[in-house]
């Protein structure tokens, strides 16, 4: 197949890519996802106007070729603010999800492998966190600790660690009884070796799938917090905050609200399409509807 002899794994990668590419919805999802991701990286250079530039004379302009999404009550270009605002969504949701995946993975592996009292305590703690509506818990946490970027990342992580931990724990419970794990125990392998070499690599595909799903939920969470004024603080642009500010003139300038709302919807939907695609790619037997 591949002429390159060094890429030994290419058949598997090829199969995965083929499986992903055969799903048109996933491709659409991936397209929009990477569009926003690109904007998050280079948004402030790509935006047609500086996101904070106020041109009072051009207040509440309707969408046109000069202002794709119109302007807001201060005459700022809505499109530019959406593009630049992508950064906070990706930063908060992305780093929160990655942290949650890491700690959830560790907690789930330990909990599932060792079992016993530790498992019981860890899982009950997870139940407690999961029993609160996530927005409520986030509100309490942010109002107590202040809306800094670090705190926002932390609350996203705290909310999603239990979910990740449960996924990994379930996998670990199943994997630790596999014959190859028993073979390792009969060889006298240490617990860390068994956990990290024999078990962990097999839990990663579902972790990736769960991460992509968690990320799409975190977009909602970050936008909701922004809407409530507890997200990224001005002057940094934020989609939730944009929606909140635009509430007052919904009737005469709906685009100021609808455009960031559409951005949220498009990103959330495209992320879930992408995550479906990833799931079908990594676990083709599951996820068939």
């Amino acid at each position, binding site marked *: 197949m591949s002429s390159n002899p060094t890429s*030994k794994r290419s058949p*598997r990668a090829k199969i995965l890519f083929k499986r992903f590419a*055969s799903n048109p919805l996933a491709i659409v999802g991936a397209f929009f996802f990477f569009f926003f991701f690109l904007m998050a990286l280079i948004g402030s250079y790509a935006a047609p106007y500086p996101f904070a530039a106020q041109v009072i004379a051009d207040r509440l302009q309707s969408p046109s070729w000069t202002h794709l999404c119109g302007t807001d009550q201060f005459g700022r270009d809505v499109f530019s603010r959406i593009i630049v605002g992508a950064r906070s969504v990706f930063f908060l949701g992305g780093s929160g999800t990655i942290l949650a995946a890491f700690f959830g993975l560790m907690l789930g592996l330990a909990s599932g492998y060792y079992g*016993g*009292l530790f498992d*019981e305590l860890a899982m009950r703690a997870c139940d407690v966190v999961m029993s609160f509506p996530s927005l409520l818990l986030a509100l309490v946490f942010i109002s107590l600790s202040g809306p800094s970027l670090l705190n926002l990342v932390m609350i996203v992580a705290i909310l999603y660690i239990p979910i990740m931990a449960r996924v990994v724990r379930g996998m670990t419970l199943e994997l630790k009884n*596999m*014959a*190859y794990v*028993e*073979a*390792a*125990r*009969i*060889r*006298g*392998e240490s617990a860390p070796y068994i956990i990290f070499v*024999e078990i962990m*690599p*097999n839990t990663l595909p579902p972790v990736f799938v769960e991460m992509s799903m968690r990320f799409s939920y975190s977009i909602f969470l970050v936008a909701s917090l922004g809407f409530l004024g507890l997200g990224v603080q001005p002057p940094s642009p934020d989609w939730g905050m944009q929606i909140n500010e635009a509430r007052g003139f919904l009737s005469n300038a709906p685009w100021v609200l609808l455009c960031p709302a559409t951005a949220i919807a498009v990103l959330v939907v495209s992320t879930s399409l992408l995550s479906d695609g990833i799931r079908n790619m990594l676990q083709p037997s599951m996820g068939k509807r």
Partner: protein
Amino acid sequence: MTRPKILEVENLSISYQTESGLVKAVRRVSLDIRRQESFGLVGESGSGKSTLALGSIRYLAANGRISDGRINFMGEDITDYGLAKMSKLWGRHIGMVYQNPSLALNPSIRIGWQIAETAQIHRGLDKKAAWNEAIMTMAKVSMPEPEYVASLYPHQLSGGMLQRCVITMALLNNPSLLVMDEPTTALDVTTQAVVLDLVSKLKQEYDSAIFYITHDLAVVAQICDTIGVMYAGELLESGPTKTIFRDPRHPYTLSLIGSIPKFEEDHRKRSLSGIKGMIPSLRELPNGCVFSPRCFMADEECRRTAPTLEEIAPDRRSACPRWREMEERRKEMEKTKSYPAPMEQTAALAVDSLAKHYAPISGALRRGAGKALIKALNSVSVSVPKGCTLGIVGESGCGKTTLLRSITGLIEPTEGEVRLDDEPLAPKVTKRPRSILKKIQMVFQNPDASLNPNQTIAKCLERPLKIFTDLGKADRKKKILEILDSVNLPSTYYSRLPGELSGGEMQRVGIARAFAAEPDVILLDEPLSALDVSVQAALVNLLFELQVANNPSYLFISHDLAAVHHISDLIAVMYLGRVVEFGLAEAIFKPPFHPYTEALLSAIPNPDPDAVQTGIRLEGTVPSPSTIIKGCAFRSRCPRVYGPQCADEPPPMRMSAEDDRIFCHIPLEDLARVQTSPFHNASAR
């Protein structure tokens, strides 16, 4: 042979539309099944036997399609019948019995109503009449207390009883054709014997033709009149059972018969013929004859032109154009290699009154505390000398796996000890020094689960070398290639992942891993049962070769008495966590037997259609391991209960003249008088 044809399949081809294209699962198959005849379709997994059977009753999955050929059922051409017309035949004239009875029944409907439903729908009986009909039919299939059983839900019955219910359901409307897809594969051997008896009885009492699908040649030999042998979607040979077994006329059939261990004393510890390679993928079929890449007599011509199934004698068809040579080939094949029984006296591994009791407690809240203990093992004592094989045989739930796991130290026994070279071992694996760990290795049942899907074969084999030997990196690589060669795997497998290997190849890697550090004792946990017959044979030979070369002791556990008999020097028979009989293999299979051994022996289907077996059948189910048993554990099912002491006192150990230990109240002379040897058919020939 004037009985009317019930099912006529002519030149049938079936293909599946899959994501990666069209798969031709069945190609140009023709067969007839007559009234009162039972037709056995034998084939390994992936041979298309289920597709053929389901296709011939038009019951294919949504992506399956009959691409060519005709099907006649009771004189009518049903090839193009629509769903509505077929629905009238299914359940009315065609009955179906599936492999797994617990999936075939609805768990939330009482058994009786599920059975009665068939009569209500197809014959318009009212509820009461259908119910009565169901009870009557249940009585006909020798269901004990049919009315009581009819009022139960499926989860309240054992697998064997459920399968009888499914058979009742299939027979209720007195169908012309009964399709049975591996109906006994999910059952224990003693239960299988009861179900097979039932099928043979039904053959005589009902007019139905039986279309029986199985991978197990021995089962077919026992109950079918005619056999068709399927391979990679094609029928290779067909004919009357007796002649096919005595005189196979296709190399595949011949190899397949040579692959099963024969239940004959002089055939023990001999190599099996086996078949090299594996069944081809239906997507990449070989040119010419489908069997040619694995055939021991294939030549250029075979690889070029595809043969057709031809009539070679009345009622006999073979797809091998060289069928005339088969008789000579058969005689050649019967010359098998024998492996000597090394009879050392010093025990390599000894298990001394080992017991494992579980407390049914779960969770941190200690739910279930105070309930009766689950006694998985009760004072089990066995030992295996150096270089010998101890076979441990018993049905599911007899504690054989618990015994192996206690020996490895994966679970800690409640009582007793395990001794290696007369040194007691620490009960927990984590407490054992590396020098001890090196000496005991294990091969697992399920090859898919025994290799980490993320590790290459090299990594998997390197790890034991790294831990247990002081070889350098280059030496380890050399050694891995040597090991791969010793299990007959090409060195190109070095960097492969397990997912790229077939089941048999994965099991070879599993065996290679166990052998890598040259252990003294290898525990084999049903290493063959997940594999196809032809692959099993090659692995049996491999195990023999490796034992001769490296002289390890084997502890081989299996539910398959024939396989245990074939490879073991010593045998222990287990029932409900106890050893009921333990001794030299040749002594175990001669009277006197423990009554349970006797029942097992008469339950195993014999691959010799001429065999006469004693008809001892066990009714009832194995008691729960938490039952408190004062006397003999086997008493509740024993066909030879001796007296009140069986219930009250634990059975004494009786030593036969040949050092065979039997735990039974019946004096051995009395047992010997009423029991007959399982080999009596063999000696008569």
